C-alpha cells in the first residue's frame, strides 16, 4: 500500500445526523471514500440520498442547530477537519478546499461587483494589496472566458446570464488555487449547451490547476461525461463505488442498474423504460437491513434483516453493498 499516493481528501466513516423532534437521524451513514490527486469523483444519487450533506459536512457548512457530525474523520493534508477549530477551518474553507453551488444567483452577493467579490476572497486568504487582488480577479475572469472581462469586472451579478454567473463562481473558487473543489450540482440549473461549456471548462481548469474534484450530481449523463470514478449513494450510504467505465458497463448494485434502466436516452430508442417502484425512504424511516430492499426485485429474507457492508465485488476497485446481487452484474 505504501506505493499509492496519499488521497487529496479521505472520508472515513463520516456520519452526519439531523434532528427531527427529539430524535437524531443519520443523513450520511458511515461514508468512507478517498478522493485521489487529480481525480474527478462523481457522487450520484436522487434527492435525499445524502450527497449534498456529505459535501457540506466536509466543509462544516451545516447549520449549528439541528445538524451534527456524529462520527468519522475527514482527512485533508494530515489534519482531521471534523475536529479542527472553527478558526483553523476558516483558513481552509474557500482556500485550499473550495465549493461551487447549484444556484449561482443565490451564492453571489447582489450588492457587490463581480470583481470585488473575487478580490475579497483573494484578500482574505492571500493578503496583498487591493490592486493586486483586482488584477488577479481580472485574470481569473478572463481565464473562465468571460467575454470583455475588463469591463465586466465592475458589473453586478444580475447583469450576468446564468452560465456566466456560474463561471464567476468558478473563478472565485479558483482564486486561491484550491487543492480540492467540491462541486454541488454546478450545472443542474443551466441549459444543456451552457452545461456542456461549463463541464468542459471545469475539466480544463482541473488539469491546469492540478485539482481534485468531488462532483455531486443526480444526472447519470453528466457522470458518464466527466467522472473518473463514481460513488452511488442511496439513503445516506454509498451502495456502489467503481470506475466510470465499470459502473456503466457492469453495474453491480440493483439500485445502480435500475437507475440506468429508468433513464430515457436521447441517443437511442428506449422502449424498455423501467421505473423503480416506490420512493426513496425519508430520513426517519430508513429500513433496517438494506435500505433499498423494499424496492428491490432481487431481495431475499436476509436483506430485510442484515445490514449489508460495502465490500469488493471481485473486480479490483469495484465495491458494492449487496450480498445477493446476481453474479456478473445486474442487467
Amino acid at each position, binding site marked *: 500500500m505504501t506505493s499509492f499516493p496519499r488521497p487529496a481528501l479521505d472520508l472515513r466513516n463520516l456520519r452526519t445526523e439531523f434532528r427531527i423532534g427529539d430524535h437524531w437521524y443519520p443523513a450520511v451513514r458511515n461514508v468512507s471514500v478517498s478522493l485521489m490527486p487529480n481525480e474527478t469523483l462523481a457522487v450520484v444519487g436522487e434527492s435525499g440520498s445524502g450527497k449534498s450533506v456529505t459535501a457540506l459536512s466536509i466543509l462544516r457548512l451545516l447549520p449549528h442547530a439541528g445538524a451534527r457530525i456524529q462520527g468519522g474523520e475527514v482527512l485533508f493534508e494530515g489534519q482531521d477537519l471534523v475536529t479542527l477549530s472553527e478558526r483553523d477551518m476558516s483558513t481552509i474553507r474557500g482556500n485550499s478546499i473550495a465549493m461551487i453551488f447549484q444556484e449561482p444567483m443565490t451564492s453571489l452577493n447582489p450588492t457587490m461587483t463581480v470583481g470585488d467579490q473575487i478580490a475579497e476572497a483573494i484578500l482574505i486568504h492571500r493578503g496583498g494589496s487591493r490592486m493586486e487582488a483586482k488584477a488577479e480577479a481580472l485574470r481569473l475572469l478572463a481565464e473562465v472566458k468571460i467575454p470583455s472581462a475588463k469591463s465586466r469586472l465592475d458589473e453586478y451579478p444580475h447583469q450576468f446570464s446564468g452560465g456566466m454567473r456560474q463561471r464567476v463562481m468558478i473563478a472565485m473558487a479558483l482564486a486561491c488555487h484550491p487543492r480540492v473543489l467540491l462541486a454541488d450540482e454546478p450545472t443542474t440549473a443551466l441549459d444543456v449547451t451552457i452545461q456542456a461549456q461549463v463541464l468542459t471548462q471545469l475539466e480544463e481548469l482541473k488539469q491546469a490547476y492540478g485539482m481534485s474534484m468531488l462532483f455531486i450530481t443526480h444526472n447519470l449523463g453528466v457522470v458518464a461525461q466527466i467522472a473518473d470514478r463514481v460513488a452511488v449513494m442511496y439513503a445516506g450510504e454509498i451502495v456502489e463505488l467503481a470506475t466510470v467505465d465499470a459502473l456503466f458497463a457492469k453495474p453491480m448494485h440493483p439500485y445502480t442498474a435500475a437507475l440506468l434502466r429508468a433513464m430515457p436516452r436521447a*441517443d437511442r430508442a428506449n422502449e424498455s423504460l423501467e421505473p423503480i417502484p416506490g420512493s426513496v425512504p425519508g430520513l426517519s424511516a430508513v429500513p433496517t437491513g438494506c435500505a433499498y430492499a423494499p424496492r428491490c426485485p432481487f431481495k431475499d429474507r436476509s436483506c430485510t434483516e442484515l445490514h449489508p457492508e460495502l465490500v469488493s465485488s471481485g473486480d479490483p476497485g469495484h465495491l458494492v453493498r449487496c450480498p445477493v446481487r446476481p453474479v456478473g452484474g445486474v442487467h
Partner: protein
Amino acid sequence: MTTSLGSGDFVVRNLSKTFVRHGGSGARCVRAVDDVSFRIPKGASLGLVGESGCGKSTVARAILRLIEPDSGSILFDGIDVRAAKGAALRALRRRMQIVFQDPYSSLNPRRTIRQTLEEPLRVHLRLSSKNIREKAEAAMVEVGLPREALGRYPHEFSGGQRQRIGIARALVLDPELVVADEAVSALDVSVQAQILRLLEGLRERRGLSFLFVSHDLGVVRHFCDRVCVMYLGRIIEEGPTADVLDRPLHPYTRLLRDSYPVPDPRARRPLIPIVGEVPSAANPPPGCGFHPRCARAEGLCSVEKPQLETSGNDRFQACYFPETSDVAWGPCASERDELKRRRNSLASLTSS
C-alpha cells in the same frame, strides 16, 4: 405541414406573441413567439424542445389562451380557438388541459385534493354531487393514488405524488389534448420514469393528444413521435423525433444534441469550445437568430431570416446551409482512445 383537417386535430398557424415591457428608457419588445406553425393529429404526441427563453412555454400557454396570442390561428377539431368566447370557450377549455412543471406551486396548499379535483367538475359539468365524487375518485385511482388520499393536503405528498395529482386534475374533465409543460423535469429519475409510464398508459387508453414541452431530449425521444426544435421564438427544425436526433439538419439542433450528456462513458463527446451566449429575445440578431454562434454561417445568414422548409422524408428545417453528413452520435476513434488512456492510468492509481 399538411393542411387537411382530421377530426380532433390541433392545428396552429403563424402564431406570434410579443411582450412589451414599459420601463425607464421607453418600451422594450420581446418577440417570444415568432410565426410558429405545427399540427398535432388526434392521439399523437408532439415534442417542443429548446433552451430557456426560446418561447416554448409561451407557445404552450398561448395555444390554451392562458396568454392571448397577438396573431395566428389555432384550430382544434375544426373550431377556431382564438375566436371562441363565453360558453364556447369554456367548452373548449374542458377539452384542453395543462400539466405544469412544479408540483409544489401548482396545487393550492389550503385545499384538500378532493376540493382541487372537484372544482373543475363543478365549473364545467352539471353533475350530481355523487357523480362528481365518483369522477374525482376514478381520476385518483387512474393516476395510481389511493382513494383515501383525497381528504389530504398537498404538503402530505411527495413530489412524484403531487405530479400525479396534477395529472389527475387535468384528467377529471376527460380532455382530448393535454399540454405538458416540463411535466417531468422536476422529478428524480426513478419517479420520472413512473410518471412517463403513467402518461404513456393514459395516451394509449384514452387516445389523448399531447403537446409535450421539455428541455430533456431523452424524455422527448421516449415520449414524442414528432419534435419541433425552437430557438429565439421560432421553430427551426421539425420531424420524426428519432430521425431529428440521429440526423439533425439544423446546426442548432446538432449543437443541442451534441451538448446532451449521454449516459455512456464510451460515448464521451469531444470537448465543446465556448462559442458565445444565447442572444436575448429582446435584442435578436438580424437574419437567422443562430448565426452568431454558428460555424456554418455565411453572409446570407446575417441578412435574411431562413424559413422553415421541407427537405423531404417528412423533415423540415430553417437553414440555408444544413448539416449534410457526419452527424452520428459519439466521438471519433482517436478521441475515444485518448480518453481511455487517461482513465486507465487513473484507474490503476486508485484500485487497491
